[in-house]
């Protein structure tokens, strides 16, 4: 069941934070939200996750507005990795990832501990399991949060409802190797588990390599469609104001060099 936003916009303090956006995100696809700073990417993300209510228009999940779902119900079908999350006390990495299972506390699976372990292994933080999370580097903390979000939507639902994963700049703090490792992991989850992933990204080349659809925010307009169609040299020039040169990488994926 799709996640649809119709004519949604947000204004705050008299200024338009987000222009009117219309898009239908189909489940089981990897979507990226791209755009220059201040275009409203995080604002749009907060509308799609239900954190914020749109001022005009609606966000519909399975044809019902998000406000019609309870927070507890939403938490069982969608997980969000925020841009920043400071953990208040000296929780262990394992404990933080376990908190991802909180929405499912009344319907635990057979092996919750095993699930948490697998989630940590997926984002390569299992070796940090008994470390105090506040002592980790920025990139390690980001991967712990990703493990927590994955743990939240790990199991397929018995009612077959789609699972959604929203990530606000998941690769921002990660080194090159982990950027690609995470994107490959997300791609794998979309392909094999049918997870629906929506990520705010800055790196156009990562999007071209791993992402199915992009939603490019421009301030006034939004471009939505398959990645390779939307991310053309013209779009890059008109939206970001950069000149680019297309390059075909060895495995056939188009990438851009920027000036």
């Amino acid at each position, binding site marked *: 069941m799709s996640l649809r936003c119709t004519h949604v916009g947000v204004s705050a303090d008299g200024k338009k934070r987000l222009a009117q956006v219309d898009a239908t995100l189909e489940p089981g696809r990897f979507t990226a939200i791209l755009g220059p700073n201040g275009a409203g990417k995080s604002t749009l993300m907060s509308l799609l*996750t239900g954190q914020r209510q749109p001022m005009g228009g609606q966000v519909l999940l399975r044809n019902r507005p998000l406000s019609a779902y309870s*927070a507890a119900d939403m*938490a069982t079908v969608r997980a*969000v990795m925020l841009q920043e*999350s400071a953990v208040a006390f000296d*929780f262990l990495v394992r404990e933080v990832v376990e*908190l991802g299972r*909180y929405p499912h506390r009344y319907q635990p699976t057979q092996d919750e501990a095993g699930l948490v372990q697998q989630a940590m292994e997926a984002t390569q933080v299992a070796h940090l399991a008994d470390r105090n999370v506040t002592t980790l580097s920025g990139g390690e903390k980001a991967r712990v949060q990703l493990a927590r979000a994955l743990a939240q939507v790990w199991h397929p639902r018995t009612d077959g409802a789609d699972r959604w994963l929203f990530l606000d700049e998941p690769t921002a703090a990660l080194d090159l190797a982990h950027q690609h490792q995470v994107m490959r992991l997300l791609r794998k989850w979309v392909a094999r588990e049918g997870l629906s992933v929506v990520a705010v990204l800055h790196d156009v080349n990562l999007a071209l390599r791993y992402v199915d659809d992009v939603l490019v925010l421009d301030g006034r307009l939004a471009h939505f469609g398959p990645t390779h169609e939307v991310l053309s040299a013209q779009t890059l020039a008109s939206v970001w104001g950069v000149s680019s040169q297309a390059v075909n990488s060895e495995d056939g994926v188009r990438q851009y060099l920027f000036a």
Partner: protein
Amino acid sequence: MMARWSARTVWLAGLGLLAMALVAGSAQGAYAISPAQLWHVLRDMVGGSDNPTPEHLVFVNIRLPRLLLGVAAGAGLGLAGALMQGLFRNPLADPGLIGVSSGAALAAASFIVMGNLWFPDLPRALGSWTLVSMAFMGGLVVTFLIYALAQSQGGTRMGLMLLAGIAVNALAGAGLGYLSFLATDEQLRNLQFWLLGSLGGARWSAVVLVGAVVILACGAGLTLARPLNAIALGEAQAVLLGVDVERTKRWAIWVCALAVGAVTATTGMIGFVGLIAPHWVRMVAGPDHRIVLPGSALLGAALVLAADAVARTAVKPAELPLGVLTAFIGVPMFLFMLRHFRGRV
């Protein structure tokens, strides 16, 4: 790095400490009761006795209610401290932030100093309960004021609450200062002793009431343990995990207000317990609120009993103020643990 204590270890250690403090507290005091005499008293209490010994009378009428009040006070303060630290997501939070202690103090001071002038009829209606009732109501009223000031469109803002609390606490302090200025010497002395805290006012009726409030508070508080764990990831993330954050805040604030209000109304201001007990538990057992909340209650109770035992015996037959002792005992032990567990902090 030292392994963390498990929940079971914390419970055993907490109950053990509490038991030791109870035994020590039973024996100590202006009227000393030896362990042998204590054993007789307990047997008589269970079996019934026609001829109560002096030890029996002292124990049942004076010492036991005092010990139980100490347990209730320490448990209430320890739990409240842990709840506040979880709510404010800050280990330096203290139950006093929500204003209940200063509100109770202001109301008590109003009664002590201005009682004859402002509410001459109240003692006739409430009798010896007047001071306690006023202090309790004062605590709740000031908490409500701070809570109301912290409301915004998005719910209760903890940052606003902190600032409002600082302002209102300062105002209450000023009011307290002014009342001290107006007080006669005798009133001033009464007020000072009330402010420094004591378990001396332990009548069975008061003990049962405070005990009931603290037991209910502990029960309600324990249901907040898992939501508070989620809130440690940030209020926004907790909402995204399905936690009803606003409801958790309301419950935590009001459970604290009722527990600390009831305790403070009966014992005066006993500081430090709510700040320190949760720290100790976190240092040995980690920050999971499912362990920190009950652990803080147990440790708080043991701490108050230990302080009270010293209060009653250090300068007997006089009594040292309890609030002073909780600081004197708490700080060195806290510093010791800080050194011992410094890798964890």
